[in-house]
């Protein structure tokens, strides 16, 4: 099961966070800080999975952006690793430019893909379908 999904930049600022398990607000900040520190401290040739407390972190770096996913012991690390990439591909397809000004859309995309800690949709066209409908409504 996926426990949380974080997007962080290289300076350690959280861009997006989504929790699938209740974590207290003030604990989130601490958790994020530690997770980021853990990920940033690792070099490129080290493996992308980190054991942290009683769960695991899977992270992937895209230029200045880190995406970190917290999972429990039962999840398949590699599958999640590729999920991140799939997510990024979807973002790529939808946004042609910088995404950070359209965070709401990113949230929608993420919610289409991951629900209650489960991977529910990975088909790119289907993930984007509701968004396109929304856009049409906005234009019309």
């Amino acid at each position, binding site marked *: 099961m996926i426990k949380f999904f974080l997007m962080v930049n290289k300076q350690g600022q959280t861009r997006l966070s989504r929790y699938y398990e209740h974590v207290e607000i003030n604990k989130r900040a601490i958790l994020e800080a530690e997770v980021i520190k853990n990920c940033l401290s690792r070099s490129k040739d080290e493996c992308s999975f980190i*054991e942290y407390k009683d769960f695991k972190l899977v992270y992937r770096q895209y230029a200045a952006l880190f995406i970190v996913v917290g999972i429990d012991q039962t999840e*398949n*690390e590699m*599958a999640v690793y*590729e999920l991140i990439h799939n997510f990024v591909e979807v973002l790529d397809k939808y946004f042609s430019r910088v995404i950070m000004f359209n965070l709401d859309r990113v949230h929608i995309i993420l*919610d*289409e893909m991951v*629900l209650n800690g489960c991977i529910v949709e*990975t088909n790119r066209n*289907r993930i984007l379908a509701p968004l396109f409908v929304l856009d049409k409504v906005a234009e019309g």
Partner: protein
Amino acid sequence: MALTVVSQIFPREMIPAVLPLIEDKLQHSKEIIRRKAVQALYKFYLIAPNQVQHIHDKFRKALCDRDAGVMAASLHIYLQMIKENSSGYKDLTGSFVTILKQVVGGKLSADFNYHSVPAPWLQIQLLRILGLLGKDDPRTSELMYDVLDESLRRAEINHNITYAILFECVQTIYTIYPKSELLEKAAKCIGKFVLSPKINLKYLGLKALTYVIQQDPNLALQHQMTIIECLDHPDPIIKRETLELLYRITNGQNVIVIVQKMLDYLKESKEEYAIINLVGKIAELAEKYAPSNEWFIQTMNAVFSVGGDVVHSDIPNNFLRLLAEGFDDGKEDYQLRMYAVQSYLALLEEEDKLYPQKFLQVMSWVLGEYFSLVTDVDPEVILIKLHSLLKKTFVTSETKAWIMAAVTKIASHTSCSKTVDELIQEFSSSLDTCLRQYAFELKHLCEDKALMKSLLPFDASCNDLVVDASLSFLDGFVAEGLGHGAAPYKPHHQRQEEKLSQEKALNFEPYGLSFASSVSSSGVTGRQSPTGLSFGSDTSGNSPEMGHKEANTLKLEGVRKLWGKEGYLPKKENKVGKGNEPEAAPCGSLSAGQVGEPPALQPDQGASLSEEDKEKQQLASTLFVGLGSSAGVSLMGKADTATQKFKRKSKINETQQLNEEASDFQNSAASDFGPLLDTVPINMEDSEGSTHRSLRKASPCSSDIVEDNLAFETPQSLRKSVLDDRLSANRLSQSSLFADSNIEIFQPSPSAQCDSASEIPLVPSLSEELEELPHSEVVGLCQSDALALHLCKVWRDDSLLLIIFVSNKTTSALHAVNLVFEETEHFQILESATSQFPVIEAESVEHCQKCVRMIKVCTQAILPGSVGYQSEMETRLQFSVTLSLMDFIRPMEMTTEDFGKLWLSLSNDVKQNIKMSSCQDSLSAALDTLQQKLKLHRVDIIGNEGILACQLLPSVPCLLHCRTHSGLLALWFRSPCAALPDGLLYQCQKVMEES
């Protein structure tokens, strides 16, 4: 959009209101709507599984949806449900296999592909479900072999996501009932992973290997060099994973090296969580496999000093218990303890070194308890050391208390010591009340040596302390006090009441009252140990101040004696593990010669090895030594648990437990030994031998079973000849089982012999008195060639009775038939869950009855059980009884007034509208249906409203209020139990739909 929101956040209470809407959406023409509806249902299932029970068939429909997305969404629900109860969904295995086949075969449209792999996450999900379904179930697993093979074959494209699928495949293959071809392929896959230069794959490979190694330790041998490399990998995560792997393959021979590696890692590691985890593992390994006393103590020392104060408190506790209880062998004990004392003295030798508090506590306890074992060291020296520790500032007051306790113990065995006097002087004026307390205590003890000896006998930590809770020995003291005019003791609440009443009036005697209570309450608070108490009253005289102090003393005394009190608890595993150690050694050394060495000594390798490689090779041979026999070792482990269990069970259970263990053991032997059989037959026998030896040791009273077993041993010429040898050698209770572990060689065929037992229709019937009560049909539960089980439910007014008929179908008597129901969270069996029939005569029927109660409400659940009997070998049959909520619901008679009162007092309610069919349009007709089918009691009908009442046995009421309007029946339940209305609502819906 609304559906998306529903599936993300939704309050539990609103489900009944929204559920029909969402159910409608399941039939929507757009696939996306259907998919979202299923997702919303999944959310409902997560938060309130009870409320969506009635639409399980809709999930099935979703699974067969023509759109893949909808189907995929329903898989989440199934994964969850199968996780909770895999046996209920075995019939769906075929569907899942077909789906996976289609997905793997690329039948999905191309936009599901991810990097040209068809719906990889869907595949992973399906594989997981299959793994859960096929676990320990050969028949279900049979269905999957093909598709798993196919998946393995297809996933050969070089991409990360295919590796993810492969990993899942491997895991599934090793979870389900094994098939050798697949295992081979999976092992190859793992090899690819581990050898991959990509670090992520390597990690995955190690993880897979860790998982697999529990089933097949030989695989580790193939990859030993890679594992060694990973052990020195610069990435700490890889290292940690490797250690995890090593932890699984540890045995008596490689424990030293592995623990050393772990300690090395521990020293580098900083993260608290990792340390706690690892320290626990090291301590476990050290206790289980310690090859020598010295090593054990040293390892534990390292654990304590590195682990510091974050170690789990179980570790020092277990360690001390182990030391205190010792082993069967007195000499071993002595050595172990002596070595511990010596090593601690050496450690304390180094001045100014900081040790963690927990370590200091362990040290002081050991020194206090066993200082006299070391004869060449003057107790005075120890005292001086402890004294200097006490003065250090970093020592917490808890640790100081431990140290003081040790000082007291040592002082009791030495004549007057200068250090002790000094210590008393110093701490009598200490600001720490606890220390001061101890100092005073020590002073008084020093003045009265005889008392001290009786209070602190040497090596008494294991003796039980008998606690006299009634404090009868204080009676004299109390009587004396009363004689002197003290007020009698009153309990606290009474005093308070009196105080209140006295406050109103004038208080004439304030001091007398408080004085008396302080004395007597001190007596009450200090219930710890009678010896302590008597000593307290001896030395402290009668003044109230000292009396107060006495209470404190006693408490502390209690703290220190904690070990003593726990000493009589069931002996721990570590001890047993130790006891087996000598037996493990010979079998291990044998295998070391056979399995451990060959890979290390491959001739062509040896020639071209560099220095470094040689070192690694050496490390490898030490690490993997004895691995070949680790099947034997793991069996030893099993035997350990068996022996451990025996000690806790009563004698009757013991034999039965043994039977269970035996059948377990049988299974594992069959599967574990399968692959090993050709390669290391000698080992196997050896380890088997030792296991059995330990079993025999543990269960001397099972020898009567031996007799039984022998009596029933049918002469199968081949088997018997082998058996005889072995029987004469070890005369074991598991003789029949023994033969079974050779399953590859002789196929024992019980069925062949029992064929002669004809199919006599032994349909039992109820006794007359029970016949009159409402009861179900007599249905068959399970049967074998020898025995059949029938069940009849009898719905008594006050309970549900399960009548179980055990019929013997053979022409000879069956012995030692026992019937056991397993414990489940839903049901409770009153009285005992087992029944024993010493003998069931040929072709006759015995019966037993069990009174069952539902303790956790559910609409339907399974009560599993098993029946075991002795024929030519131990046999156990599994069966399960399905019990529904309605079995436990009885009408509840009450008046309308009572109903009103009760209604208001109940808090949990559930409302729901259900459609009424045309034939039952009137309220009374509807209520009649409910009354007849659900055994509800009709209390009253007023206009278009009706009230009903029932109870869940033994006495949980549930009230129902019904109202009709425009073809709808509005049901409103109230009950003190939250889950009961949900369950009843479901039943009502079902009944109304049926009629």
